[in-house]
């Protein structure tokens, strides 16, 4: 239907086709590049885990357990409306194997009975302890303390957000090392030994250590510790299990080896207290305070030309309840994407800046191009293919090819993550669980991944709009507690 005779429709047609194929080819190359980088990181992770993954022997653990030379650690646990799970999770944290540690729970003005539950369950008294740190925070109402060998300190404060709660914990504790843990998480019994190992090996340079987070849904929990590891009955939880494996083992090991790790999970990360105080503590204004702190530490330390290491260690595992409802998951992913954008935007000075070494030239651009803009490009790819089909610019076979390539890339990456787990840590005891994970790795690419892409794009749009964050509260199902006989 050519309405105007003076227009050369063939030329327009050719132009449209050319522009279209330029975009389509760019997207295919983008997917190709991201796939190759992921694959390279997976190969590095495989080789590095085989070389460096050396858990302590039983004799060594006993020596560490008895040694007064072990540095003191404070577990900093920010809590907001956690009455349902805090008894179990804090109880588990008090039963860890480590000679010298305490647990600092910060009740960030909870509206439920979090404080009352903690005070009555652990028989706490009002303490004379005061904050000695220098970070500016919302006021503390009262500090409670237990007189047990492993001390539990509960700080009741005015609501100020998660970052503010962690900063209060940093101000009150005097331990040289702190581990930030989510209050709904369960830590493995020997996790502190493995978490502190990089610091023990290089105490002068290591300023932060990241651990692994896994999904606890439907695992058996006894006395606050994971007793039996198994996959969940929920597909959504299993999809996330695979996603976590891929993210932690695939990406972080490689980045850590290059000393350009930009994310340490807020659910489980060890920091040198002095270093965090020097960096100014966790940022209140951002939603991804964990990533922001790590990027800021890189920024500051590289700016001052100081030698340092921020590392990831695969063995210490923290189990956390992942959302099983799409509504909560959507909220969580939108928040994460917003956090990613905010962290990267704040430190945009580092983008392709050779002053910041490998962080500026590789890690930061990788996060901007692939992690932040990735969902946008993926969605654009889907849209272009659909439009191409609708306007008959591309043949249906090419469209099918594009979709299948994109899905198969996802499947390969998910399976690589599960394989890495199988070859290195092999935590899932039965082959049935491994098979479930493999199947989930395949199935997540049909719908679930696309859903995540849409939510991440929405998160990005929220970030552009400047939407502010909150505590990101999640509906708790509670742990699968084994009946005590």
């Amino acid at each position, binding site marked *: 239907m050519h309405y105007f005779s003076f227009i050369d429709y063939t030329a327009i047609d050719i132009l449209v086709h050319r522009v279209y194929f330029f975009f389509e080819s760019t997207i295919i190359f983008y997917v190709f590049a991201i796939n190759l980088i992921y694959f390279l990181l997976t190969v590095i992770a495989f*080789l590095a885990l085989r070389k460096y993954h050396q858990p302590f022997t039983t004799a060594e653990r006993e020596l560490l357990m008895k040694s007064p*030379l072990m540095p003191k650690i404070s577990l900093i646990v920010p809590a907001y409306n956690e009455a349902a799970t805090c008894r179990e999770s804090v109880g588990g944290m008090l039963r860890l194997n480590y000679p010298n540690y305490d647990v600092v729970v910060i009740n960030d003005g909870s509206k439920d009975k979090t404080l009352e539950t903690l005070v009555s369950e652990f028989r706490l008294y009002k303490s004379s302890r005061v904050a000695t740190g220098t970070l500016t925070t919302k006021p503390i109402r009262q500090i409670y303390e237990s007189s047990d060998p492993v001390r539990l300190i509960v700080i009741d404060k005015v609501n100020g957000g998660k970052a503010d709660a962690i900063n209060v914990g940093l101000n009150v504790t005097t331990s040289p090392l702190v581990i930030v843990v989510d209050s709904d998480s369960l830590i493995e019994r020997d996790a502190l030994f493995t978490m502190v190992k990089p610091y023990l090996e290089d105490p002068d340079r290591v300023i932060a250590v990241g651990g692994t987070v896994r999904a606890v849904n439907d695992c058996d929990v006894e006395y606050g510790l994971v007793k039996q590891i198994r996959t969940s009955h929920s597909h959504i939880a299993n999809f996330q299990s695979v996603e976590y494996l891929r993210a932690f083992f695939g990406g972080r090991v490689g980045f850590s080896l290059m000393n350009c790790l930009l994310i340490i999970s807020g659910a489980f990360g060890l920091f040198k207290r002095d270093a965090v105080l020097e960096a100014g503590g966790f940022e209140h204004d951002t939603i991804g305070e964990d990533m922001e702190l790590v990027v800021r530490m890189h920024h500051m330390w590289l700016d001052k030309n100081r030698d340092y290491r921020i590392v990831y260690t695969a063995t210490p595992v923290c189990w956390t309840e992942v959302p099983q409802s799409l509504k909560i998951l959507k909220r969580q992913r939108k928040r994460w994407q917003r956090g990613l954008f905010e962290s990267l935007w704040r430190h945009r000075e580092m983008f392709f800046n050779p002053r910041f070494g490998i962080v500026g030239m590789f890690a930061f651009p990788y996060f901007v191009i692939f992690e932040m803009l990735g969902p946008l490009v993926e969605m654009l790819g889907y849209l272009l293919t659909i439009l191409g089909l609708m306007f008959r610019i591309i043949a249906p076979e090419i469209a099918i090819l594009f979709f299948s390539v994109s899905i198969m890339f996802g499947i390969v990456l998910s399976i690589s993550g599960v*394989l890495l787990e199988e070859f290195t840590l092999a935590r899932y005891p039965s082959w049935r669980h491994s098979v479930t994970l493999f199947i989930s790795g395949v199935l997540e690419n049909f719908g679930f991944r696309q859903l995540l892409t849409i939510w991440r794009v929405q998160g990005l749009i929220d970030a552009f709009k400047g939407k502010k964050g909150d505590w990101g509260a999640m509906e708790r199902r509670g742990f699968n507690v084994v009946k005590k006989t």
Partner: protein
Amino acid sequence: MNFQPTRDRARRLGLRLFPRFLPSLFPSWFSDVMRRSQDRPQIVSQDFHGQSVVFLKAVLVMMAILATVWAMHRNVTSRWIHEVPPSLAVSCLMIQFVLALVGLVLSGSTKKRDQRRQRRAAHLLPLIRHHMAAYALQAQGDAELRRLHQRHSREFDVCLREFLNNASGQARHHLSQLAGNLGLVEDWKHLATRDHTARTEAIEALSLLSTDLGVPALEALIEHDSTLVRAAALKALVNVAGRENLPADRCKMDLPALFRATISSSLLVRVLLASDLRCHAHSLAQNGIPQLLLAERSAGPLLAALEMIECWRYGLPIESLHSLLHHSNPRIRAGALRLAPLESLHAGSNGAWTSQRQAVRSNTESLVPLVISGLLDSDVTVKAAALSAAAGLNVPSTLPLIEHCADTADQHLASLACLALATMGPPGRAILNSKIHGANARLAASAVESLASVQLANASAFQA
């Protein structure tokens, strides 16, 4: 020719490749980058070599995969997909898919293999043990053992290490020779496995061999790139040095040298060796530690040595400690002060109870001026150490100074002072009681808490 990649060489290479006009375009940026790269400390990671190997291997694997992808694209996929990008993507995908499948099969077979090995070990270990016991007692030759080693080397290795650990005298010598003849010592020396437990056991086995075989191998392992292997080697050497009086020509590292090597190592090594070195604390206090404390100039090893002595909890006569109390570094002064209560306990191993008590008292009196000077120190770390020393020595003359510390604005110091007062018997407790009724509410709370915690500690000690 040395091909070791160094930062300098890389920088030179980078400069040569760097276009000459760029500095003129971005003068401030360029000079900033250059200044920073020159200022950056020239520290090469301890495991730089290991990390480079990992990267090199990964890059080689990727290159091999890319080459295969390209070959597949040229020869297979481009025939039915004419566009280049989708053809390349499909080739890449197919290769990765095959790799993932191979991985899956390998994962399954590894699990199966482990199960099979466990079953086989349960069946074979008693048999090997039986023959090994007979060999150790010289009741049979090594022919059967050689046969078993050839067929089941893994299980044989486990049994031999077990036997070396438990045998002594002639039997151990005999088994050492067997290990040497079968080439197991070489395997242990080169740590042929990645499994850390097996590595540690191999290092332990080396320490149990006759010294000619084991000690040189252990000394070589002190330079290993894994901290845990270094720690295990040092630990094994400490055990050898403690067990046998080795002549200098056969063993380069005596106990003082091992102590020096330990405190120069990372915290992990120190933690793992502290209890083994503790067994030799007295001999080290006479020969090794004093010389080290006097000669060492850098703060790191000095602090490590002080921490190590503190964690031994032994009353050691170390005269050179006193000189450290005037050290310019406050952390070293604090470390030396924390040892004061332990030092006072040294009363000699001989003599009657009363004379030993007398010695402790005189030691304590000689340390009091040092503690007082610590309490008057301007540095908070030193003051805190002096408070714990004063509490440990329980000297009434320090009470006014401790009370002064309790009244300071520094809450951390004040609570430490309260705790010290609570442990110092009735005079200290009297001061705390007066604070409880004082105007400073925070100090009162701290006093109550200190009294309660000391009471609790006493009660639990009484119960124990």
